[in-house]
């Protein structure tokens, strides 16, 4: 799996993680994410990350972590949610890390579902399908950031155990359907079209092309 820092430049990373940010997460996850920080038991683990400097400064603990190191860790631990420090504590806009965290969580749920999960005889997703979907999710995060897409995909589990990313952007819609190691891509434009303009089995390396089409 590629780390975000392999796919984004340092400047792109800083642009993506617009300051100021607040990290919300369990102490277990945060201590795993930032092992440089000595966490005190029973202390709330919300941290402001100051991106105005070349490294990430974690408050109130004062630890400093390099942005590229931090970015790579975010990819591995997307269950940590990033939000703006608004009064409500709620994010004002869904960042790639927000939707990625949501989709990562959904994939975990899909992996735990058994046969007949819909009570209509649906098959469970195989571990191979879930692993492929996770790998594709990581790539979609990076490609989405690069393409500066304002929208994000949704996930669905299909009755044959396939997992699908559905992604609408402006007047285009893309399906990426994963079953074990195979990936099917299907495109519609405009959204009102019944018939798709493209339907192919693609390789992992072609994913970026699909996201580029979506963002065109």
């Amino acid at each position, binding site marked *: 799996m590629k780390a975000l820092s392999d796919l984004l430049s340092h400047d792109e990373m800083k642009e993506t993680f617009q300051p100021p940010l607040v990290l919300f997460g369990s102490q277990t996850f945060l201590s795993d994410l930032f092992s440089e920080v000595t966490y005190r038991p029973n202390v709330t683990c919300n941290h402001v990350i100051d991106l105005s400097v070349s490294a990430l400064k974690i408050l109130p603990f004062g630890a400093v972590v390099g942005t590229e190191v931090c970015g790579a860790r975010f990819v591995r631990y997307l269950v940590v949610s990033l939000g703006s420090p608004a009064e409500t504590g709620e994010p004002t806009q869904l960042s790639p890390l927000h939707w990625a965290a*949501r989709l990562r969580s959904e994939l975990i749920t899909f992996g735990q579902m058994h046969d007949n999960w819909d*009570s*209509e005889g649906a098959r469970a997703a195989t571990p191979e399908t879930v692993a492929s979907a996770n790998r594709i999710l990581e790539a979609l995060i990076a490609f989405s950031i690069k393409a500066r897409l304002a929208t994000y995909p949704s996930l*669905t589990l299909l*009755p044959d155990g396939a997992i699908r990313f*559905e992604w609408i952007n402006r007047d285009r819609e893309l*399906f990426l359907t994963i079953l074990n190691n195979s990936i099917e891509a299907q495109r519609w434009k405009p959204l009102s079209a*019944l018939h798709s303009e493209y339907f192919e089995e693609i390789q992992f390396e072609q994913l970026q092309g699909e996201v580029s089409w979506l963002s065109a």
Partner: protein
Amino acid sequence: MAECVNSGAHVTDRTDSVFRFIHVGNTNGDGTLNSGSFSLRRDNAVSLGLASRIGARFEAFCELKPEQGVARLSVGSILDLTLGIHSDPEPEWGEFMDAHFVLCGYEHLSNRKKEEIGRRLRDIANGNIVKHPPQ
């Protein structure tokens, strides 16, 4: 299965409608449905409840699958997609056994066409969600 030939009675009244149970796994974060609700890929039977046979017992019908939501589609909109709806009594539906119907007429289609139709059914249903699945 999805065979329309040599099967039970077909629904032809375009003014009637059908209910489709919606699993939470087939919804998006904003509560809308995704195409998983009507996936035809495996030629699996897509269960529907015929509104005219459910009548005023809708609340009781929902209790068949209380953990799921319900969307409503007009029969006409389904027939327009060259699909059929045929009777398939389901004992597990208890008092609603005879209200159980399934989609048919797509078994001969390519996967590409099946996905296109499933997506269109999603869009139709999204305009008629009667009950959202509990999150």
